């Protein structure tokens, strides 16, 4: 069988296998995501103390070493499982809000800049250049040094620095598409710009955007932990996965579980999001053109 048939003329057995594989991707992705989102949403029910109960007698207990602490305890004797469940909220909030903010802002500006070019394009692109030339961490540190750390500021800093990548991708695909035959054809039929943008150009830019969005949510969950690591994170009392990793780093050699389990939580979330993203991409890919 040649590669050509593999891609274009799909035999029934192959497409079935592919469908099953894609379904598996979807099933695992959605399961992981729902599981973790569910854990986080139900945290107040299962762990009413929010993982904040300190017990100095039971500190640094290994998994299952103390009753009621299946994943062990941290340096202050707090239950790791409860903190993971509660702490996921910060990670999700930071990851989702910042990425959504960035994708909306970036897409709008990228579309307009790419489609209309002109002054707006220049302004957006110069603004984009500035932000691209300014490493996120330095920008975040400067801003947070001035205003002090908080959840909202972290999200805003992320949006302000991250819309650029969306704008560039969207603008790039607009530029690549606007000279293509089907766009030119649509134009010649007298379709309105808005219609062309939303029914032809945007769907074509969707694939990369969604991949980037899923990566971005995951990435921002990681960035939040980097900020905490540099001492710029959310306040010390609010549990967060990133914060747990940062706090546990001095105990890596003696109490691996403090960093392992939040690390796993992050990994599984990221994995779930990416599987979903890939699956979505395939779904959207079919409807393009």
């Amino acid at each position, binding site marked *: 069988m040649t590669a050509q048939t593999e891609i274009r003329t799909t035999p029934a057995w192959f497409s079935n296998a592919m469908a099953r594989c894609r379904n598996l991707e979807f099933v695992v992705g959605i399961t992981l995501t729902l599981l973790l989102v569910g854990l986080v949403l139900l945290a107040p029910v299962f762990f009413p103390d929010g993982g904040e109960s300190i017990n100095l007698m039971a*500190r640094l207990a290994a998994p299952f070493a103390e009753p009621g602490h299946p994943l062990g305890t941290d340096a202050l004797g707090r239950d790791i499982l409860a903190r993971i469940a509660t702490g996921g909220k910060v990670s999700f909030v930071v990851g989702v809000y910042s990425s959504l903010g960035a994708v909306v802002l970036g897409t709008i500006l990228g579309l307009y800049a790419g489609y209309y070019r002109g002054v707006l394009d220049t302004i957006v692109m110069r603004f984009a250049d500035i932000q691209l030339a300014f490493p996120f961490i330095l920008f975040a540190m400067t801003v947070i040094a001035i205003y002090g750390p908080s959840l909202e500021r972290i999200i805003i800093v992320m949006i302000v620095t991250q819309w650029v990548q969306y704008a560039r991708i969207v603008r790039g695909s607009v530029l690549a598409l606007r000279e293509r035959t089907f766009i030119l054809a649509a134009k010649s039929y007298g379709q309105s710009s808005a219609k062309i943008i939303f029914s032809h150009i945007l769907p074509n830019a969707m694939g990369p955007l969604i991949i980037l969005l899923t990566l971005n949510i995951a990435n921002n969950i990681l960035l939040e932990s980097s900020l905490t690591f540099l001492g710029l994170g959310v306040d*010390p*009392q609010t549990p967060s996965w990133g914060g747990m990793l940062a706090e546990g780093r001095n105990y890596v050699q*003696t109490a691996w579980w403090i960093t392992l389990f939040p690390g796993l939580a992050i990994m599984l979330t990221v994995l779930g999001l990416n599987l979903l993203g890939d699956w979505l991409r395939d779904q959207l890919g079919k409807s393009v053109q």
Partner: protein
Amino acid sequence: MKLITSTLSCSRQGFVKTVKTGLLATVLAFSGVQAYALSELNVAQGSDPQNLDPIDTFRLSWGSIGSNIFEGLIQRGEDLQLVPGLATAWEFLDDNSRIRFTLREGVSFHNGEPFNAAAVKYTFDRLLGEQGQKGPQRSNYTSIGSVEVIDDYTVEFHMNQVDPVLITKLAGYGAMIVPPKYIEEVGEEAFDRKPVGTGPYQVVSYEPSVELKLARFEGYWNGTAKTELVNIRFISEPATRMAELMSGGVDISLNVPNTSVETLKKNKSVDLVTVGGPTVNMMRFKANSGITADARVREAMNIAIDRDAILNALLGGLGESIATAQGELSFGNDASIKKYPYDPARAKALLKEAGVAPGTDITLDIYNSDETFREISQVVSSYLGMVGLNLKIRANETNIMASDLIPNGKTGELFQFGWGGWTFDFDNTAYLLYHSGERFNPYINDAKLDELLEQQRATYDRDVREQALQQVAGYIREQSLELPLFNLATMYGVSKKVSGFVPAPDDRVRYMNVVVAE
């Protein structure tokens, strides 16, 4: 011991320099010069003073370096006793308005320049003059009016005012004797990077934030250092510092974080060496407003916290809980002042009496760089929660805390304060914290405290001073004006290969007698 070629090998300039040193090694080998082994000690410390000139810096990180390069007229060893240094004797004259120092003969600087009265005068003229104004050291020595050269080896200090801590201060930091000719020759900027003193080690090379290389000074007047080369590396990330220590990358690590105590204790190749230090950890109150203006509330918070439980659980028991803002080694400490008991029931009663409703929100400001205190403060929050106070913790950048929140009185009801007066004299802490109008005292304005503090500054009489300082401490305890926590031990991580290391309580480590076994 390592071969000299390996100590030279490739540095940060990358390939070019590597190639050069490679060539050098080859040349050495072929020219018949014996590549001989040099004894070497590798040290890690958390921060870089960034400027080695004694008058340009006021950091403990300078102290742990400077004490190997420089000497003062007076010396203070690891036992904190003041002994003759570059001065062999001193006497107070004319009702304490003059101090006469007899200088040690036969001492020379690393560059060969002789140490004499002219060097002493130059040192203090520089410190108190224009050059000193640019740095943080001058303000500690303004009690000195001028220095007069009597003869080559005798000088007199003319005092502006009484300064009871002066002799101690002459053993440290800004009073280190510097070489006049060398500074005139190379200029101030070069001196910052490659200073010259009279100490047992001389600077070979200094790369800011990276590494300082010291070599034994063969002409040292007071014996010879046992190890030829000392490399001091600056590693700001505590976990990295500890990893270097445990992997054998460094032989001694300063600034061991409390969070690593357990790891070090379990490690077979490293010892945890501790000594009582000057650092006190405490929280201070916004004592002039809000619920913390009420002495009962302050006392309640003080007795709501089980200090010893925190000390033993989080800090490995390496330190003492304290009743006032000083440790046992401090001049002015009064052992009869009782520590705060742990009495949550009474704390609740006091809060009720003061009319504080359960669930009242209060805020604690802490430094975001201090991981140990981050843990401590969360436990404190839990203790306060048990008596009905809802403590919110705000982590702030060091600079914001020190330049804005504290001096301008913008802190929450509580704020973190750590202080390590290297002089071990309570004046150093008390005046700063309790005298009205001081920069780090935004909230306390008390005539009685002002009077006591001024009184002890005006005399050299140790008994009078001690009594006044003890009264200050007693008054603070009585009014619960602060929330003292611990006097933590100074900790060093030391490889088992190292011998002759004496832990310095004041971070002013001396490497002269340290030997690293092969």
